């Protein structure tokens, strides 16, 4: 890897002091002090939900901090709005690329850029010419007059990057820009980032990939649970240091779960395909087994889970539950077959936000609370109370709207809902996303206990340590295809990452990866 040039000695461009942010009373950033220098590439690191994006958005005027101040070149500023941030020379490449699907690529590039009068004329020819130039610079071949709708996430991300390049911004924040990109695109991006740094601009680079940080960044700042843990020169850190800073304890503390008595096949899917989402996916999960599904964001894991559960059924392939082939076109059928699914998008697909906790818990088992079609409040209360104790859900009242609970407790309530159906197969999609560390540990306990009870568990997670710790077997997906199957004994983060990163051209797993693949 190339050694980054040392940070230039130019002064501090922007400094944050005591930045804090609350969402709905929950503090997600507390007292962040950070100086970003001109001419440096500064990495922001941290687990999911650590607050990196939130901090970036505060710098870019998307969020206003609850407390704290920002100063540019020593002068205190009130960023206030994205427009104002742009005037101050700050540009943000969002984690989820922003696109206006009905507008052309070229227009997406310039939208909001110009400071001209709003009734000023739009010079289409100039805009398109400039857009082509930028696309050439980034080495992407997109017709800039086509509409944004239908562009791949990667291409959308490149358009966002092109947008940032076109500005004369002094501070460019890139929030996980490389997640969807191919290695070649990443290389181009890095080249450009270095050029911008050498022009004296400040670049903030957010990524979960340590090797990228190592290759590109001068300094790194680590966040944990909304608190800035430390800022170091990248060269002085090794991976273990960084991970320890990120998770607050040495890596070794994650212990592998023990081999367990694994029973008959509970769920088997064969050659499942859904056009535009995933192809030819085959998964087997046995009783008492925890099977992990790893992959980068957008790899198609959620789509697979939704297909199995009948939310968005697959086009082809078969599903077998407890040995017999079944058709699942609707979640209600899946539930009858003993499947349960904790979706990743808790806010929209999990909870009934404004309804009470007990209503949420009883949602999947109407028959248990309404023996003759009429709901009996006492039964419902009893049911919910049992879950409170079992899962240690913390709340003020069962009649409280569930949205008033913390994320972790909401997730527990969803899990409680499914446990009442007494499922034989549990599909958990990012069950610990957005949950604080303490509750995460509780979840690990629960997942282990459920497997011990003989339930078959399919665990989708983007947190590799979590998968490594819990799973008996880990399947890896990239771009809608299974690329590897790794036994616990062989599993390492590197092996999984290699299988998860999309390869340009072919999806064939590399030979040395194949060695790690179990032949089951």
């Amino acid at each position, binding site marked *: 890897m190339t050694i980054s040039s040392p940070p230039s000695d130019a002064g501090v461009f922007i400094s944050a002091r005591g930045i804090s942010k609350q969402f*709905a*009373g*929950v503090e997600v950033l507390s007292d962040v002090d950070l100086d970003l220098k001109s001419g440096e590439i500064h990495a922001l690191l941290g687990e999911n939900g650590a607050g990196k994006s939130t901090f970036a958005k505060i710098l870019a005027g998307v969020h206003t901090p609850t407390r704290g101040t920002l100063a540019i070149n020593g002068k205190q500023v009130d960023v206030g709005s994205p427009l104002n941030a742009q005037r101050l020379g700050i540009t943000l490449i969002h984690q989820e690329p922003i696109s206006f699907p009905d507008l052309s690529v070229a227009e997406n590039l310039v939208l909001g850029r110009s400071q001209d009068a709003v009734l000023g004329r739009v010079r289409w020819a100039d805009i398109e010419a400039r857009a082509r130039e930028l696309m050439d610079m980034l080495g992407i071949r997109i017709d800039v007059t086509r509409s944004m709708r239908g562009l791949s996430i990667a291409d959308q991300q490149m358009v966002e990057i092109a947008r940032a390049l076109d500005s004369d911004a002094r501070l460019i924040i890139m929030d996980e820009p490389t997640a969807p990109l191919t290695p070649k695109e990443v290389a181009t991006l890095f080249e450009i980032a270095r050029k911008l740094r050498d022009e004296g601009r400040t670049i903030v680079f957010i990524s979960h990939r340590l090797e990228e940080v190592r290759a590109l960044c001068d300094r790194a700042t680590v966040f944990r649970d909304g608190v800035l843990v430390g800022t170091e020169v990248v060269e002085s850190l090794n991976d273990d240091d960084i991970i320890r800073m990120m998770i*607050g*304890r040495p890596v070794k*503390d994650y*212990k592998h*779960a*023990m081999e*367990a008595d694994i029973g008959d096949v509970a769920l088997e899917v064969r050659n499942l395909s859904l056009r535009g989402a995933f192809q030819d996916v085959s998964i087997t999960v046995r009783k008492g087994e*925890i099977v992990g599904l790893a992959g980068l964001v957008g790899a198609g894991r959620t789509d697979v889970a939704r297909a199995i*559960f009948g*939310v968005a059924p697959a086009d082809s392939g078969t599903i077998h539950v407890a040995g017999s082939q079944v058709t699942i076109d*609707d*979640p*209600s059928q*899946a*539930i009858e077959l003993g499947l349960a699914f904790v979706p990743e998008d808790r806010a*929209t*697909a999990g*909870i*009934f*936000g*404004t*309804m009470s906790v007990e*209503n949420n818990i009883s*949602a*999947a088992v*109407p*028959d248990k609370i309404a023996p003759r*079609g*009429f*709901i009996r409040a006492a039964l419902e209360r009893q049911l919910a109370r049992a879950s*409170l*104790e079992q899962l*240690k859900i*913390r709340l*003020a*009242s069962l009649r409280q*709207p569930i949205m*008033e*609970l*913390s*994320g*972790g*407790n909401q997730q527990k309530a969803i899990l409680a*809902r499914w446990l009442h159906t007494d499922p034989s197969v549990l599909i958990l999609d990012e069950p610990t996303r957005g949950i*604080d*560390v*303490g*509750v995460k*540990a*509780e979840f*690990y*306990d629960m*997942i*282990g*206990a459920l497997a*011990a009870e003989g339930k078959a568990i399919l665990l989708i997670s983007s947190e590799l340590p979590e998968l490594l*710790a819990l799973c008996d077997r880990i399947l890896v997906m990239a771009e809608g295809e299974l690329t590897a199957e790794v036994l616990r004994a062989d599993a390492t983060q590197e092996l999984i990452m290699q299988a998860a990163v999309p390869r340009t051209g072919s999806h064939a797993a590399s030979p040395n990866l194949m060695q790690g693949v179990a032949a089951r």
Partner: protein
Amino acid sequence: MTDKISTEGLSASQTATGEQPAPKGAAELRPMWQVILIRPEVMTFVLLLIAFAVATQLSPFFADATFILESATFYVEYAIIALVLTLIIIAGEIDLSPAAMMAFSACVFAALFKLGLPIGLAMVASVITGALMGIFNGILVLRFKLPSIIVTIGTLTLYRGLAQVLAGDRSISGFPTWFIGIDWKYWFGVPIPVVLFLIATVVLAVFLAFTVTGRQIYQIGTSPEAARHAGIRVQRIKMGLFVLLGVASSFAGMLTASRLASVRYDMATGGELQMVLMVMLGGTYIFGGRGSIAGTFLAAWLLIVIATGMNVANIQITSQLIVMGFLLIVSIIATNAIYARTQR
């Protein structure tokens, strides 16, 4: 089997217990009086009391139970539909076509009767027509995933047009005497349409509040995604509601036919606004998930009192239009504000 992951330094599992106020995220409960009093239905009830007092002041002829009940017969046709519409809006959809469905199904009824069909069969045909129109709305909204509010603006024009094509501008009459004048027949001293409205209110209120399907209607409106994930048959329930609305519209159409002893294509023109107004005024949340039959029931009486009061006080229709439009907007804003307030 799996041994516990060591979670050194984390003591969450030890500290956590039962219903203790939790440190993070578990917000304080609102005081009970707030939960009870700050509800849109309470606002409706208060408005009803005020309207009653004002109407009594405005005209000495107003406060007369017989008169109010008699006047109610014109509005309960809409109110019965509004009750079903409440369910649809709670489920997160809307239907603006029921007034037109009333007209078309009533025209089908009258036209078939004129063709010599026995009146019973004509009534059945009318109900089937109502159901079919409901299914058509349902298919457009559910199968083709079109936004219900705009689709039903289309179908409201369409159904009204069909009524006009079918019945022309003639009014069709000549129904047997037993069919005519249901509003002048009484059960327990109350006009039958009003009794029917009361029965519908009780049945639907029980259905919505105490049955599983009722609960699921709220869940669907709160989050259709989550409802589907929880195994609730979202499409089926919504389709059922659209059909129910079509059937209710057909019933209301026949009530109107009986009251007027005649049917014309322009029956209930503009009635959709009144129905939506009743639902909104009753505190049902326009975005779905919240609302109650009781609210719509109260709102229906509120409208009856306001309209009757203004009529009997000889207040010009111009002011009445303004009062209605104003009420609709204010009620939506108030409901919205109340729900926004109780969001957290």
